[in-house]
């Protein structure tokens, strides 16, 4: 059984159709890329997947369970984590605390008002371990807003990883990065491949074609092509937009 099963999802904002009949099946452990031009509806699709936007029609199943229309915090609690294209961090918190707040153990104690959060070393240690995996080992005490742009991109992923998710949704993880930064993120995400189910929106085709098992091309709110990277190279749409040149 596939981990994510999206079928017939429509999203309308007023009289504007943003997504139309989107189907997507992602087996556990797959790295699934989403590409397409700006305004195609990729981020909206992520918002549907993670509960920010309720679809007008269609259903989303996660691990066999219908999660259509559930709020984001419920979907997150089921093991769907996401990063944001427009960075969404707790800017006044240290990098470590950003990760800490996302730990499921911390969330379980979210209504604990009687103990000091800093009194539990376990949270800090776990968060530090995760910072090591994204290359922020020595930045734990730095406030998120004082980190460099590339480090903030890495922290975006660290926070999502801290949730111990089964599915990781990455919304343009390399957005705004230079080639060194993209390389760093590619290495980082490459290490996660296979360990987690990953759905990634990405404009950097080299990044996507080298990592993804399958790719869906979204245009005008519809999936216009889907397949393994080498198959997509033959696709008319991809050829015409000259997107497959790196594959």
């Amino acid at each position: 059984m596939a981990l994510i099963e999206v079928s017939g999802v429509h999203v309308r904002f007023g009289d504007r159709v943003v997504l139309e009949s989107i189907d997507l099946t992602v087996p556990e452990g797959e790295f699934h890329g989403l590409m397409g031009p700006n305004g195609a509806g990729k981020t909206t699709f992520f918002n549907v997947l993670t509960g920010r936007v309720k679809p007008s029609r269609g259903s989303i199943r996660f691990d066999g369970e219908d999660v259509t229309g559930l709020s984001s915090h419920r979907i997150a609690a089921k093991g769907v984590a996401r990063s944001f294209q427009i960075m969404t961090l707790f800017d006044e918190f240290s990098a470590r605390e950003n990760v800490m707040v996302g730990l499921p153990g911390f969330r379980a104690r979210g209504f604990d008002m009687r103990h000091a959060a800093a009194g539990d070393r376990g949270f800090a240690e776990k968060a530090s371990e995760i910072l090591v995996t994204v290359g922020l080992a020595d930045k734990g005490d730095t406030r998120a807003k004082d980190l460099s742009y590339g480090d903030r991109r890495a922290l975006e992923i660290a926070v999502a990883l801290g949730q111990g998710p089964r599915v990781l949704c990455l919304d343009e993880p390399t957005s705004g990065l230079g080639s060194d930064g993209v390389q760093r993120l590619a290495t980082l995400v490459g290490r996660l491949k296979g360990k987690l189910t990953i759905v990634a929106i990405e404009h950097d085709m080299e990044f996507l074609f080298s990592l993804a098992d399958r790719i869906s091309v979204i245009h005008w709110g519809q999936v216009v092509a889907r397949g393994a990277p080498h198959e997509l190279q033959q696709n008319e749409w991809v050829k015409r937009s000259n997107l497959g040149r790196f594959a």
Partner: protein
Amino acid sequence: MIPAPQSDSARLITPTMLVLGLVLATVPLWIARVGLYPYLGIEILIWSLYALAFNLVLGTAGLPSFGHGAYFGIGAYAFGLCQFNVVANLWACLAAAFAVAGLAGALVALFISHRRGIYYAFMTIAFGQIFWTVAIKSHKVTGGEDGLLKIARLPADFGFASFDLAGNVAFYYFVLIVFGIAVIALWRLVHSPYGRVIAAIKQSETRAAHLGYNVWLYKASIFVLSAAVSGFAGGLFAMAQLAAFPDVMSLHQSGYVVMMTLVGGGLVSFWGPVIGVFLFLIARDVIGAMTNAWMLYFGLLFIAVVLFRPEGVAGAIMAAWQNRSLNSMRQQGGTALRLLFGGGRWR
């Protein structure tokens, strides 16, 4: 004087609390000699508790509540009405003040917790005005504009011993002890996992929701807690004044606690609201003795703080004492201020 949050956040009682407690314990010994009066000490403590409770919403959660006087006032009325109609017991009446104000807060929280920023501000004002109008109009219950008079300072009965609180000095020490316990509880609250989640939600509701937190429930709960503690302070205030008046529920009184908190530096420091209350009430008495227009000067100070010194007095003190950069405190205060009014991004 103001410790770094990192080092003290895990402590139950911090050095600052001890020093402050010791200083406050000596107040009745010298306050008359510096030209002030013991009652002012009581007022400062009660307003400090109120401002600390208010800052749970404003500073910790980043939610602009501009009708908080309602809960302070409801607590005062609840204390008086409990005393007259239910039981004339100090603990029961203080519990009533806490519970009734919390209930009123819960009612309002139902309607506002999906909002933030300016929408939140307006709705809190609207609800505050509703409660104020009700207090003025229901003559039979609240005594209308005359207020609820002849509220007694009930004795503190511990079973084995009972303390008379009728005198200002005895009452001062009672309020000081209660204040001390409340400060310890609030300090622990803002540094608990719950408090950190609230602080996280202030910075990004979107991220918090996608981390699995029920943002609405957290925002509603902190508002209820804040209203309840404000009401508790209101109960003490009814004892201090020997009456409960609708005036404390009015918009301008609700504005005072905002001014105190922002001027003191509640956006960057736990102690900001307390500093603000000290400044405000002492300015009221000292400048007020010279000119009726004392609010003009405090208002100018308020404008200057919001425009140029969003870190408030506490931010400046923290920068001086802890070798922290004033600029970074200022940025933090500025960001918090922008978050307060520029919100509404989520949903």
